[in-house]
């Protein structure tokens, strides 16, 4: 039956009551360990403080020793983290799409512990510490989730280092 109450019309009517699909960028962010516990409303609030940046292959995202002001989530592309060695630079590994790096900067304005360079054309989402702090003050529940997320990520990295596994590339 294809009248007024046909199946397609009914489905269209139902779609009015279902939430619109999530922004693809937010889908990626929701998969990042730090933000895994955030619900959709919290991610939408977070979206206002995400800065999309495009890096060319070979371009430096941040530099070892400079003051860290925020963290990054890779949307597309690939980056490499390097640390200065005694004789030559030491590669810490590759950071892929869906991974985050630079989380240490969320805890304080200490110097970056590695240089991160784009290996290919890359898109990242930058999150700036003072903006996240302001957001956490306005929404303490979200602030708590992010703080716990950062703590868990750092805890798992410390554990890996203590267990003698390779150093984490995103420990920057």
């Amino acid at each position: 039956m294809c009248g007024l109450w046909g199946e397609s019309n009914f489905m269209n009517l139902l779609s009015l009551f279902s939430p619109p699909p999530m922004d693809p960028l937010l889908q990626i962010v929701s998969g990042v360990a730090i933000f895994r516990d955030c619900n959709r409303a919290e991610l939408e609030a977070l979206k206002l403080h995400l800065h999309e940046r495009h890096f060319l292959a070979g371009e430096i995202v941040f530099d070892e020793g400079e003051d860290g002001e925020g963290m990054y989530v890779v949307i597309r592309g690939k980056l490499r983290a390097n640390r200065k060695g005694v004789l030559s630079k030491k590669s810490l590994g590759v950071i892929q799409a869906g991974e985050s790096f630079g989380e240490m900067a969320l805890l304080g304005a200490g110097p970056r512990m590695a240089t991160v360079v784009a290996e290919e054309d890359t898109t990242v989402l930058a999150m700036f510490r003072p903006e996240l702090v302001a957001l956490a003050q306005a929404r303490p529940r979200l602030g708590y989730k992010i703080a716990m997320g950062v703590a868990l990520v750092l805890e798992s990295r410390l554990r890996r280092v203590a267990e003698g596994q390779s150093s984490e590339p995103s420990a920057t």
Partner: protein
Amino acid sequence: MKPGLSNERSLEHPIIWIAVIAGALGSILLLKAVAWLAFPLILAVVLYYLVQPLLQRLQLAGVTPGQALGIFLGAATILTLIFSVTILPSMLNSLADFQNQIPTYWDRLQGVLRDNLLALEERFSFAKKAGLANSFQEQMNLFLAGAGKEYIADVALFLLHWLPSLLLVPFLTFFFLRDGTAFHRLVLRAVPNAFFEKTLLLFDRMDNQMRAYFRGMFGLTMLDTVSLGLGLWFLGHGTGIFGFWDAMFLGLICAIFAWVPYIGSGLGGILAVATVAVKAPSSSGLMVAVVLLFLGVRLLDEFIYTPMTVGRALRMHPLITVMMIFSGGMLGGVYGLLLAMPLLGIFTVLGQMFAEIWFDPRLRARYQARGLLEKRLASKDLGI
């Protein structure tokens, strides 16, 4: 060079200081040229910084940013309606009474000044030779006959010109509150990757400084109003010169005058003494008491109120402050007097931002490297 060192040396560059002062003075000229827009814009920015913490409190209570803005707008509309129905009519009546009494006040003020000049002539022979009282009277008559009327017409035209533009204030404030974050992101998109983190940090610093300044100034104005208002009421209520609300209103006007550093407090004091002189010409003791009250509040301002509210965020060397105020006043009149210091503060932070970013060799190297990468990419695409 370590990146952290750039902060310490950023304002040592003389070109930056010259650019900061030139920028502040140039902005005064620009704002004077578009005063009808600049005035509501500045008021909207002030309101934005005053209202923002309220919205944050609402968000803390669990409402979304949009709902918080809606609740605030609703409450503001209701309060405006209540104000329009209850307080506004009596305020307009008082204003009409005051307008009727202006000629009397003016005559009394002239009388007080003339009496004092005559007393001066009696005591000092040089004043008598100069004929101070007569020449003052002649100047006043000349002013009232010609220039005074022109000034009054100018003031009336000025008020007619910018009062409608005040309607822009709530409109602009609403959009600052609603779209401020999105606009901030839009501006940041234009910043090259190399300077991005530093720019974000410095924007945040400027935002914090402006917020602290405007909130501080609001708090300082309230404290000054209450101190001066209570003081004037205490001194004048016995002799029937000031009612409570009259004293508070005069205190508020003097507190607004005090926005202009150094000069404003003096002007406020003169206004209050002139008011006492007009209302009670024979009580010279009261005038001295008002002067002492102003000196007392000035000391409170300097040692307690200002450190409590505005802090030392915009503290400049007194010489620079006075030079800026006079230059601002010369270039932009009342606008220049009021805006000289806030604009100098904003341009100082902008100067710091520019210097910290531009004089950091690592950031510049990264910026140049990006340019080379773009060039190489373009050459590859073109097959050169």
